[in-house]
C-alpha cells in the first residue's frame, strides 16, 4: 500500500471535515497522525464528534472533506456495548468475524479458543451472552476482534457502561493485550484518568464542530500498574488534560 503522504503513520487524518446533509458541521479540519504501535486516546466534551471521528476512521461513515489514511484490512473495533449476537454462545460469537471472512472451521475454532483463554473466559465458551456479566460480555467482544489479529484497534467508549471496579480491571487487561499483540490503538473516552492511564498520547477535542485543540504525550513506562493512579505526576498530567478539556467546553 502506498502511504505517500505519511510513510510512518498507521492512521492519519489530514484536514478531515464532516458535514451532515442537514448542514451540521460535525468535524472541522481534524489533523491527527498515529504512528504504528502507538495508543492514542481522544477525549472531548459530549457531542463534540469524537465518536464520529472513529466512525470515519473505521469506514462506518464517510467524511466530506480532507483525507484519511488507514489500514482497515484487519480492523479491530469495539462498540459502546459488547454487541454480541444474543442467539450465539461465546465460542461462535468469537468465531463470527472469522466466519464472515471465510476462515476454515477448524482453524476458526482453534483461534477462538486461544483468544477466549487470553481474555480469561475459559470455561464460559458455551454460555449465552444473557448469562454473562457486563465485563465478561466486553471480554468476549475483545476476543472476537483479537481473533482477526488486528493491526489497528479502535475503541468507541467501550467501558463507559461498566462499574468502576470492572472498568479498572478491564483497562489493565487491555493494556496487557496491547503490550502482547502490539496493535495500534485509537480509544474514544470521556474519562480523563482512563485516557491518561491507558495511552501513549491523549488528544483533546473542541466542542462541535470538533477540532483537535491539545495533545499530551504520556511518558509513563509500560506496563502500567494500578499504583500509577495515585502517582503525583499522573495526577498532574490528568489535571492538565482536565484544564484543556474545560477550556474546550467553555471557549
Amino acid at each position, binding site marked *: 500500500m502506498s502511504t505517500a503522504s505519511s510513510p510512518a503513520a498507521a492512521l492519519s487524518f489530514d484536514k478531515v471535515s464532516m458535514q451532515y446533509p442537514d448542514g451540521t458541521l460535525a468535524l472541522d479540519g481534524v489533523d491527527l497522525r498515529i504512528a504504528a504501535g502507538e495508543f492514542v486516546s481522544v477525549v472531548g466534551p459530549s457531542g463534540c464528534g469524537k465518536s464520529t471521528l472513529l466512525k470515519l476512521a473505521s469506514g462506518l461513515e464517510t467524511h466530506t472533506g480532507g483525507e484519511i489514511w488507514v489500514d482497515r484490512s484487519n480492523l479491530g473495533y469495539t462498540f459502546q456495548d459488547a*454487541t454480541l449476537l444474543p442467539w450465539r454462545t461465546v465460542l461462535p460469537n468469537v468465531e463470527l468475524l472469522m466466519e*464472515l471472512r471465510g476462515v476454515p472451521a477448524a482453524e476458526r475454532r482453534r483461534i477462538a479458543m486461544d483468544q477466549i483463554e487470553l481474555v480469561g473466559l475459559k470455561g464460559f465458551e458455551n454460555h449465552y451472552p444473557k448469562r454473562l456479566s457486563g465485563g465478561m460480555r466486553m471480554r468476549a467482544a475483545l476476543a472476537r476482534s483479537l481473533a482477526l489479529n488486528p493491526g489497528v484497534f479502535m475503541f468507541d467508549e467501550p467501558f463507559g457502561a461498566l462499574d468502576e471496579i470492572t472498568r479498572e480491571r478491564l483497562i489493565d487487561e487491555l493494556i496487557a493485550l496491547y503490550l502482547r499483540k502490539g496493535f495500534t490503538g485509537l480509544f474514544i473516552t470521556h474519562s480523563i484518568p482512563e485516557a491518561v492511564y491507558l495511552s501513549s498520547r491523549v488528544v483533546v477535542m473542541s466542542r462541535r464542530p470538533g477540532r483537535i485543540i491539545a495533545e499530551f504525550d504520556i511518558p509513563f513506562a509500560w506496563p502500567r500498574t494500578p499504583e500509577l493512579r495515585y502517582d503525583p505526576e499522573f495526577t498532574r498530567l490528568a489535571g492538565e488534560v482536565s484544564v484543556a478539556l474545560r477550556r474546550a467546553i467553555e471557549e
Partner: protein
Amino acid sequence: MSRAPRINPERFAPVPVEQPPGPLRAFVALMLPPVLMGLMLLGLYAWTRWNLPPHRQFLMPSAGDLWAQALSRPEVLAELWNRSLVTITIAVTGLCVSIPLGMAIGIVMFRFHVMERAVFPYLVALQSIPILAIIPLIQSALGFGFMPKVLIVALFTFFAFPTTLLLGLKSLDRGILNLFRLQGASWWAMLWKAGLPSAAPALFAGFRISTGMAIIGAVTSELFFLAGKGGLGQMLINAKTDFKYEQMYAALIASSALSITVYLVFTWAGNRLFASWHESAARRG
C-alpha cells in the same frame, strides 16, 4: 430561606421470611381457578339447557347423550379421527403455501424499502377483506376440490408472516448491523447470520397464531364445500342436516382440541428454541 423539617424516627420491626407453600398447595393454587371457572361454565350450560322448552333441548345435548350418541361409539370416533386428518392435511398444505410466500414477501420488503412502500398497504387491505365473504367466489372460480380449500387456508394465515418477519428484521440491533458492515459482509450474510435469527422469535409468535388460524380456516372452508371427502367442517354440516347434534358437538370439540394442541405445541417449541437467549420467551414463574 426555609429550614429542613424536624426529623422524628419511627421504629420498624423486622418481618420474618414467609415459608413458601408446599408443592400440593402450589398445585392447587395453580389448577383450582381454571377448574372452578370450567365447572361454572358447565353449570351455566346445564342451567341454560334446563330452561329451554323440551322441544328445543336438542340444541344443547346433555353429557349423557353426547357420550351415548357420539363419544362412546367406535364408528363416530373413527370418523372424527379420519376427518381430523383431512382437516389437518388442508391446514398444513395451506401453511406450506402461505409460509414460504409470506416470508419471501417479508424479506423482499426488508431488502427494498420501495417494495415495502408499494406492498404494505395492500397487505393491510388484504387483511381487511372478510375472507368468509369471498369463499363463494373462490368456489365459483376454482370448484370444489382440495386446492380451493388450501387457498382459503393460505388467505386466512398469510398476513401474519410478512408483517411479523418485517418487524423482526427491522428491529435488528444497529450495532450488530455495523459489526457486519465493518467486515464488508454481503447482504445475504447479514440476512442469514443476523437478520433471520434476530427475527425468529417474532416470526415464531406469528407462527403460533397463524397455525391455529389455519385449523379454523380449514374447518370454515369445508362448511361451503360439501362434495368429496371432507374434514371436520363437513362433519359439522352433515351432522346438522341429519339432526345428529351430539355428533356436531363432538366435531366442534375435536376442532377446538386441534387448534389448542397446535397452540400448545408451538408455545412449548418456542420456549425450547428461544428461552436460552431471548428475554420474552423465558418461562414465567
